[in-house]
């Protein structure tokens, strides 16, 4: 039966797409988690919805236009929320929460007024088993750009995340690095919404990154572990979706979710096992 899985062209495309999303998003997720911005990632994933909806209304199910709309909406919500935080006394999490809830409601309303229930379902939940070559190429391109840019800004991004005052004191462009990082994050959310849907596109970015926290205290290893968890989750999730004829987005997220639960129970650092069934200690 798994022979059928690997021979099915739609499944091949879904597999390539999911691998692209894994390689690009999981490392971004690690930085979101380390910067204590996990929820921010989720917020951004939802915030792209009105942009996607607007593009859908204007251009129909055009993936490039919907991607551009999504990026525009995601970045606008991030920037507007940041602006509101600066000019009012509202804290950033509160202003982001307000904006993204409004964004989701507006997006759903726009699609509901102009499209069918099927359109709404496709946009909210995605359909990894129904991607064409153009979309898969776009996803591969975004992933390649993500990996290259992330490698370029790696050193300042690490410093900006852990000691921003030092970066500023040596004249590093912290704001620029942060902006590039957030742009990559939004691009990747948009990249994955076709496969995972807007409701779940943050899942493959964040859950492997969170699970990786339990396995290592070294950043480079953590990045590799997060990609590994995402890749394994994506492949097994798609196999389950294919075999059991269930939606692929939730299947993938539930598999990486299971790996997260295992990590939190059995991981090497800070897990339930490490805390309640401690390893033998070394000589002092």
């Amino acid at each position, binding site marked *: 039966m798994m022979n059928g899985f690997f021979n099915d062209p739609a499944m091949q495309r879904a597999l390539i797409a999911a691998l692209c999303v894994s390689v690009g998003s999981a490392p971004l997720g690690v930085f979101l988690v380390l910067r204590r911005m996990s929820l921010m990632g989720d917020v951004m994933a939802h915030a792209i919805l009105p942009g996607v909806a607007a593009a859908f209304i204007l251009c129909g199910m055009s993936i490039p236009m919907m991607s551009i709309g999504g990026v525009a909406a995601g970045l606008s919500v991030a920037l507007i929320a940041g602006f509101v935080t600066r000019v009012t006394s509202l804290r950033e999490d509160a202003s982001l929460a307000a904006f993204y809830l409004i964004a989701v409601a507006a997006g759903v309303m726009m699609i509901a007024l102009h499209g069918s229930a099927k359109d709404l379902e496709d946009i909210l939940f995605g359909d990894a088993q129904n991607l064409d070559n153009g979309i898969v190429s776009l996803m591969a391109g975004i992933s390649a750009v993500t990996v290259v840019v992330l490698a370029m800004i790696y050193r300042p991004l690490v410093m900006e995340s852990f*000691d921003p*005052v030092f970066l500023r*004191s*040596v*004249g*590093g462009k912290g704001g620029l690095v942060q902006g590039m990082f957030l742009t990559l994050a939004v691009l990747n959310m948009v990249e994955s919404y076709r496969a995972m849907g807007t409701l779940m596109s943050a899942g493959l970015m964040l859950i492997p990154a969170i699970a990786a926290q339990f396995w290592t205290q*070294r950043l480079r290893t953590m990045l590799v572990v997060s990609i590994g968890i995402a890749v394994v989750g994506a492949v097994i999730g798609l196999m389950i979706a294919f075999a059991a004829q269930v939606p692929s987005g939730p299947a993938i997220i539930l598999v990486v979710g299971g790996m997260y639960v295992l990590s939190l129970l059995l991981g090497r650092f800070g897990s339930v096992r490490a805390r309640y069934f401690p390893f033998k200690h070394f000589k002092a």
Partner: protein
Amino acid sequence: MTIKLTNLSAGYDRRPVVHHVNGEFADASMTAVVGPNGGGKSTLVKALAGFMPLMTGSVDYGGVARGEIAYLPQQFEIDRTFPINVMDVVLAGHWPKLGALGRRRNEHREAAMRALTMVDMASFATRPIISLSTGQWQRVLFARLSLQRAKIILLDEPFAAIDSRTTHDLIHVLEHWRQHGCTIICVMHDFQLVRDHFPQTLLLARDLIAWGDTGDVMRDENLARASAQAGTWVEHADVCDAQGGHAA
């Protein structure tokens, strides 16, 4: 490269915490900044580091470039749970030379290792920083500082919550840097350490109380004046129109 402050005021939301300060840090001097909590010590150092806009006045760094000024803030400003090892933290001290993209060569690693040896932390090079104690962590930050080759070094309470052995080791590092021509400006709380190791002292309680040789500055009447001035808050303060030039 004397650092000259002219009528310097800095603070938050129209409330100056450092108020019309004038004076000079001599070349290769080592000055303790002391005073009561809320007296503006951190604010002064932040302002000198270029981290906050001045309300009035100016600072003349005597031709020292921005990249030659190092600033070590209070410890809690750094995320010590971040998954990075000691060596990578120290290597960042090459930033003024290498920038964000410059390649790290063997010579850079060797220099980082020498810096770690200087603070007695060489055996910790590959440890993640989350495993370090507060004192070990401060030693690592001093190693990073030493790679920056700064001409002016600003430190904000580097010995808070640090045991006496580490404190003395690190003060010797400061003295070593000063002998090599660095100008050191260091916020301090422990008066005994100031008297023992810092030739110059700046006593600040929002207004400048005294600035000069430590023996002259740390006299009882100056300290009493500083603590009397601490903690006063006038709810509806008048707009200040002083043009500077006065010391108190």
